[in-house]
């Protein structure tokens, strides 16, 4: 071997080692370890969205997105209170996750392709199927958005809501007039004053806003969804262990509901002889250990937080939001979790 050839090989090896080191440093494989060392999950949430994430005057957080982080904490620590909530703005949320300010983003974020590829993030599973919908006065007695031809539509300016609205009416050969404002409050005020026939926004938002109207029962939200807004928790890429914990936490809650396991009957479930139930609660197999957790990881989630339906009912259900697409696939919806086996 010539000196030159040896040098080339040496340089090649050095380059590979350097690349590996850089890659290794970029690899974020330690979220679970860092979470355990810190003794808390850092959870990025919305600063205030009824049903999803709201603090009370003592700083106690509650909501659907909040409960999801508590479920992850329950799985890891057997303690749903080992979570630090970090309120984040919409425009900073993904960067804050990237820069490791939080371990999970659980902040009503729509899963889209560009958000995964562009921010180097991963949306493990859909927690809540939302979509753009319409609210109308009940007195109009209409059942479907296809009856909205010729309507004056209250809508917030500068949003994708506006674009979806245009697409939907054009696709269905219907005419409409936009009544648009920059601020949501102004849109609500216009609807209240009867300056439009219908109000469009994401359905979850419409239900929350309806509660603020003088007579909520006088308004209905149509069942049509004209856009896809799958809300999902978000984690960083290249931390498969953590991503799996987040993903299976959600799936454990959905499977628990399908199997009829609740926070009320979890002790009974631990004595069950049904194989599906035994695998989920950890009396058979070691599925939790393969996640880096304990055998009873899912039982902890169910005991402290409850199944998917319980979390839904206690947070968004009480706003009057029907389960709709978020009902289990076997009971009228599309929520479907892969089996634990």
């Amino acid at each position, binding site marked *: 071997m010539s000196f030159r050839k040896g040098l080339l090989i040496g340089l090649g090896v050095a380059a590979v080692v350097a690349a590996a080191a850089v890659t290794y440093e970029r690899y974020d494989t330690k979220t679970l370890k860092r979470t355990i060392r810190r003794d808390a999950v850092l959870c990025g949430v919305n600063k205030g969205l009824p049903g999803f994430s709201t603090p009370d005057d003592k700083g106690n957080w509650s909501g659907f997105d909040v409960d999801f982080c508590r479920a992850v904490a329950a799985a890891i620590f057997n303690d749903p209170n080992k979570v630090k909530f970090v309120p984040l703005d919409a425009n900073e949320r993904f960067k804050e996750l990237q820069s490791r300010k939080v371990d999970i983003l659980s902040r009503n974020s729509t899963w889209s392709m560009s958000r995964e590829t562009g921010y180097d993030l991963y949306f493990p599973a859909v927690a809540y199927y939302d979509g753009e919908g319409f609210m109308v006065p009940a007195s109009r007695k209409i059942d479907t958005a296809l009856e909205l031809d010729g309507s004056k539509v209250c809508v917030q300016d500068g949003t994708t809501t506006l674009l979806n609205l245009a697409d939907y009416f054009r696709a269905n050969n219907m005419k409409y007039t936009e009544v648009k404002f920059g601020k949501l409050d102004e849109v609500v005020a216009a609807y209240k004053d009867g300056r439009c026939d219908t109000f469009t926004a994401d359905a979850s938002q419409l239900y929350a806003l*309806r509660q603020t109207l003088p007579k*909520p029962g006088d308004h209905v939200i149509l069942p049509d969804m004209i856009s896809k807004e799958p809300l999902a928790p978000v984690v960083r890429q290249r931390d498969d262990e953590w991503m799996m914990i987040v993903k299976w936490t959600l799936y454990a809650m959905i499977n628990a509901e399908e199997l009829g396991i609740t926070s009320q009957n979890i002790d*009974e479930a631990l004595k069950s002889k049904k194989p599906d139930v035994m695998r989920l609660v950890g009396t058979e197999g070691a599925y939790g250990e393969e996640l880096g957790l304990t055998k009873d990881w899912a039982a902890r989630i169910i005991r402290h937080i409850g199944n998917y339906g319980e979390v839904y009912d206690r947070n968004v259900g009480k706003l009057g939001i029907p389960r709709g697409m978020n009902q289990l696939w076997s009971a009228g919806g599309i929520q479907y979790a892969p089996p634990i086996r």
Partner: protein
Amino acid sequence: MIGMSRLFGRLALAASLLLLAAPGYAQQPDVGDEPGLIANDDYELPPELRKQVVFFRSSEAPGTIVVQTSERYLYLVQGNNRAIRYGIGVGREGFTWQGLLKISRKAEWPDWVPPPEMIQRQPYLPRFMAGGPGNPLGARAMYLGSTVYRIHGTNRPDTIGTAISSGCFRLVNADVADLYERVPVGTKVVVRQRPEL
């Protein structure tokens, strides 16, 4: 499955009661009702229990009634991934059942004749009560097969959303009247329970 075995048990019970009784006998009375209490028609259900059109995927044909007891909802399947959803009160512990039945009879402002087992449990109940606003069966009743179960109204709208009945499904009077107009005798009724552990 307890659901089905209880159903068959109750069917047998209902059949034996029917042998003993005059027609119109077998209305299964419900705990939590106050015979004679006039229903407050202004009572406003919480928003999640109000009648509304919802997204509902189903392999059942339009016109079928699906009752999901653990949710406290009754769905009237509309097709096109929709259903009309009504908030209901359901059977208490020990009075749950599931399966498929058909609406066998419909009645407006039905009379109520509490059966002996009920009188035994609650001796203060009337032996007969004519239909009307103070009747626990409320404004309408839809009879399910030959069982003691009905879909009916109520004079206690505050019990919608609870598990308190003896296996019947109760709706507020406005809702039961609305449903009554939409479903003929012969309508399929599918009752689903939460799975057992």
